């Protein structure tokens, strides 16, 4: 099957797989920080920065657009924090405000850019829903490297993340600097979002951060295994979505990634070995059968059928 893909397409596939893994791991942190929605707010908040980066550079310069994206995503994060700390608005509402305002602003700027004369802005729309096929090899290599860096950062401080996410107060008592952990977390989150939006799009990027972690939770009671599974699911969704969009020629990548992630989620929801819906049903059936069996075997020893239930 790989023969059917061009050399560039193979690179794209590898990079989105790695990006999906990084998003899965990062999403696992966000999930236990109760900040799944934050990743959605920040990826939407990246859009105005992409367009401003393009406008300042005067052409579709990837570094300029990604720096712009990172800056506006960070501005979004700061704003969420300010709104929550400085008013009575709760965090979820603050995220909702930032998400919609930044995204609205981004769409407005994008429309203005699209009306500019000349064709330099063509393809900018790809940042909305993702256009993995449009990436060139140098983009792809950067994306793969950044994704691996994010995964490695979490991996080497894995024990610390576990403590910090489970009991931040106790972590501080042990001398783990909470401020630093929060800063590193935000840096990883923004980095993964910014490198991912070209492939998955600002609208759909959050799904790659949220759904793999949620799906992984259904399979295991160990944080390490949850993060590993989340990475695997993220990678699979990223890879599958990209593959489908490469074959579809011109299909946006983001929605296909979301569909793949959603399929994994549905399978986990039903068949998950720890929290899946099917498991309790099977257990109940087995227990019933066992009770019936023992009731038949020792009927004389049991007073009444009613006492079993």
């Amino acid at each position: 099957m790989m023969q059917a893909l061009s050399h560039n397409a193979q690179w794209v596939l590898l990079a989105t797989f790695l990006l999906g893994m990084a998003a899965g791991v990062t999403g696992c942190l966000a999930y236990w920080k109760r900040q799944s929605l934050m990743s959605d707010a920040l990826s939407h908040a990246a859009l105005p920065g992409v367009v401003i980066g393009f406008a300042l550079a005067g052409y579709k310069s990837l570094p300029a657009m990604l720096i712009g994206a990172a800056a506006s995503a960070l501005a979004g994060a700061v704003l969420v924090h300010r709104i929550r700390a400085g008013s009575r608005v709760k965090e979820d509402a603050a995220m909702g405000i930032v998400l919609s305002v930044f995204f609205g602003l981004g769409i407005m700027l994008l429309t203005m850019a699209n009306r500019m004369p000349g064709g330099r802005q063509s393809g900018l729309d790809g940042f909305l829903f993702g256009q993995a096929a449009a990436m060139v090899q140098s983009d792809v290599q950067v994306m793969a490297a950044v994704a691996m860096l994010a995964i490695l950062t979490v991996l080497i401080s894995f024990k610390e993340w576990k403590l910090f996410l489970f009991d931040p107060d106790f972590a501080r008592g042990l001398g783990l600097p909470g401020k630093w952990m929060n800063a590193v977390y935000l840096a990883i989150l923004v980095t993964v979002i910014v490198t991912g939006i070209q492939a998955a799009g600002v609208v759909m990027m959050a799904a790659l951060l949220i759904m793999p972690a949620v799906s992984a939770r259904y399979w295991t009671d160990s944080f390490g295994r949850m993060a590993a599974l989340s990475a695997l699911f993220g990678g699979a969704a990223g890879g599958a979505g990209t593959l489908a969009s490469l074959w579809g020629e011109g299909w946006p990548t983001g929605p296909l990634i979301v569909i793949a992630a959603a399929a994994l989620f549905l399978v986990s929801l039903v068949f998950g070995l720890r929290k899946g819906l099917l498991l309790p049903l099977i257990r109940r059936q087995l227990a019933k059968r066992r009770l019936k069996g023992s009731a038949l075997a020792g009927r004389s020893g049991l007073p009444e059928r009613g006492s079993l239930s």
Partner: protein
Amino acid sequence: MEPVLKVSGVAAAYRKNPVLEDVSFAVAPGTLTAIVGPNGAGKSTLLKVLLDLHPRLTGEVEFFGTTYRRAKERVGYVPQRNSVDWDFPACALDVVLMGLYRRIGWLKWPRREHKERAMEALARMGMAEYAKRQISQLSGGQQQRVFLARALVQDADLYLLDEPLAGVDAATERAVMDTLKTLRENGKTVLVVHHDLQTVEDYFDHVLLLNRTVIAHGPAKEAFSRENVIRAYGGALRWLGERTG
């Protein structure tokens, strides 16, 4: 003897509402002290202020004659059980191991010796057979024992516990109190936020009555007098009449 913990003139607030005002006391080494007071008296806040988890508006806090930052390693903290999400994917052993993280070293993985120490602490709390159990599958009392085991492996000199006996079964209550008394016998100092006035005198040798400020502090027999308790709690205390009458 030099006090293990010296608090002078501490004040704290939530948003703009004052919770603690001019709190001053000193804790002698080798004592087992109950912090007692009505709901909203600032007991948990006091612990958090001492541990720099909640901002202190004014006042001084000294641990072992120095700041908390410098004495961190000698101070163990057991937060309220409901302060964490027990659905977190971890087993009892994982949680106890967290108490050893500083000894293991940052960015390093736990070794066999650390796991053995954590297992010993679990066994001390009667929890050895639950080591691999997912923490959400433990009862409230068992979760509390896991928290205490995590504090034990820290091998601290001063322990601060926030309501370790709230909503636990009788067996856990006994296990916790036995452990705290053993700690005191080994020369450690223990400070416990406690809610059950009936057991104060049986369990603790010192009492700190708190209602936004220190109402009374000293040996249980003196500080935990009828007048002091009434002063701390106001009029809403029928049990005292029952006990003495």
